[in-house]
């Protein structure tokens, strides 16, 4: 059943990582990604891994949950490994069989690339695991607010994102319901040729579109009834506040970057 899909991937909790300001977490994620690309030695990867493990432990996220999130990426990871392993030029041949040639450089690069992808994805997962979608949108809005001067409709954009996120579970439920109803009328969504199956989706998509428009209409009406007039002068119930822990987080982030650069210079 569609209901079993978990979306948003947010695991509620009350750890230091959960309580960090979403802006801090967003910025640090960017720093983390940038740092990952600055890594130039195995020691650097070890350092990044240690940092990731520390944050995971602090957030009380089970490593299993992170691994589960990586599952859909297995194909990309394997592909990256194969491409780097077999198609890296170099003279330091490790293994040769007919036209297949594996070089030390290739092996080195394959392992590094796989590590990089794994660390990159699990690092960003930590952000969504510990920050609710609403907090992320809120943080993004505040971070992008300087763009307002350039007449970018930041508030509207973040509101749209909010509404979209809010309606994902509703639409999944709705799809489930309509699917059941059409299956009860003998709809066959599983067999047939591709065009047949595409046509079989119409009884599902049309009611879904109709109800989405209806919902949008109702939501707009409800917002207007409550005097919605855009972001001008809006105050917030939940103010975002930077706290001491955010400062510490930034310092630790800077330390990570510095550590990576030093290890790179030292070549460890």
């Amino acid at each position, binding site marked *: 059943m569609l*209901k*079993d899909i978990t979306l948003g991937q947010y695991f509620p909790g009350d750890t230091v990582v959960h309580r960090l300001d979403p802006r801090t977490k967003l910025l640090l994620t960017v720093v983390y990604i940038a740092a990952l690309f600055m890594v130039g030695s195995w020691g650097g990867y070890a350092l990044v891994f240690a940092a990731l493990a520390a944050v995971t432990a602090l957030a009380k996220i089970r490593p299993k949950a992170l691994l589960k999130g990586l599952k859909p990426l297995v194909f990309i990871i394997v592909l990256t490994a194969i491409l780097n392993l077999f198609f890296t030029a170099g003279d330091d041949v490790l293994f040769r069989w007919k036209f297949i040639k594996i070089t030390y450089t290739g092996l080195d690069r394959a392992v590094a690339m796989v590590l990089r992808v794994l660390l990159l994805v699990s690092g960003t997962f930590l952000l969504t695991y510990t920050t609710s979608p609403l907090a992320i949108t809120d943080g993004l809005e505040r971070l992008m607010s300087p763009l307002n001067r350039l007449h970018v409709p930041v508030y509207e954009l973040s509101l749209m994102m909010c509404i979209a996120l809010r309606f994902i579970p509703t639409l999944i439920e709705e799809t489930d*319901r309509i699917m059941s109803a*059409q299956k009860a009328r003998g*709809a066959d969504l599983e067999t047939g040729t591709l065009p047949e199956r595409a046509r079989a989706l119409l009884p599902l998509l049309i*009611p879904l579109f109709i109800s989405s428009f209806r919902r949008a209409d109702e939501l707009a009406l409800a917002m207007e009834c409550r005097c919605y007039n855009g972001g001008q002068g809006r105050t917030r119930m939940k103010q975002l506040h930077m706290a001491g822990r955010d400062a510490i987080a930034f310092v630790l982030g800077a330390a990570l970057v510095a550590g990576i650069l030093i290890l790179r210079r030292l070549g460890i």
Partner: protein
Amino acid sequence: MPLIELRGLTHVYSQGTPFEKTAIDRLDLTVEAGGVVGLIGHTGSGKSTLISHLNALLKPTEGTVLLDGEDVFASKASIRAARFRVGVVFQYPEYQLFEETVYADIAYGPKNLKLEKDEIDRRVRQAAAFVGLDDAVLDRSPLELSGGQKRRTAIAGVLAMEPELLVLDEPTAGLDPAGREDLLEKLFAWRRARQATVLLVTHDMSIAARCDRLLVMSQGRILMDGAPADIFARGDELTAVGLDLPAPAHIAALLRQRGVALPPGIYTAAQLTDAILALWRKGGAPC
């Protein structure tokens, strides 16, 4: 042989996750062909989950669903057969309408049955007539219809498949009293004409009172099973699981508390008036 037999039916949602929930818990039930069976129970008692098993939309976590003594989940063919023999009308079925015309929408089910064109035409017209949609409506878009007409169109879409067992989940929710009465009359007439069996899920005790047999669900199990008169005689147990009595049964219970010697088994307005009039004739005012 019973039409439907459920043996040890258990359904657990999201098994193995923190959101695990047992919706149906080792439930046994047999339904014989013919008659109207009512299914009542408060929200979350597992009614909707139960009916989704009857036409093989949900696979039981444990237990079996037998249709005419044969396991519904035996093969893909038997699953498909169950979809056509057991017609299910879900809550607010009007949201499933999608075709350009009412006619085409009602014909969707029969078309999936791969019937001849003439047969489809006969079934569509007959189903439309049963729910009281006239020919002029058949060519209109279902989206232009009123709420009540949309509901009828959606129900006709299932009737046109001519199921042996028709399951309706709150078919009258959101209709006005006149529309509710009218729709119920039509469904009962359809059942009599087709000699089919109807399973009616409802929150409305006045509708439950009109069924031949009543099932009360609570926490994923069947708590009571019997004739409406017997079920409504157990008012306290019903209130305990978040249900109430039909208004006439409630009034009768209050009168009995005040010492009026009303006979047991009263749950319709007609029975109540008859009983009061009988007392009156026997000797003066009963209270």
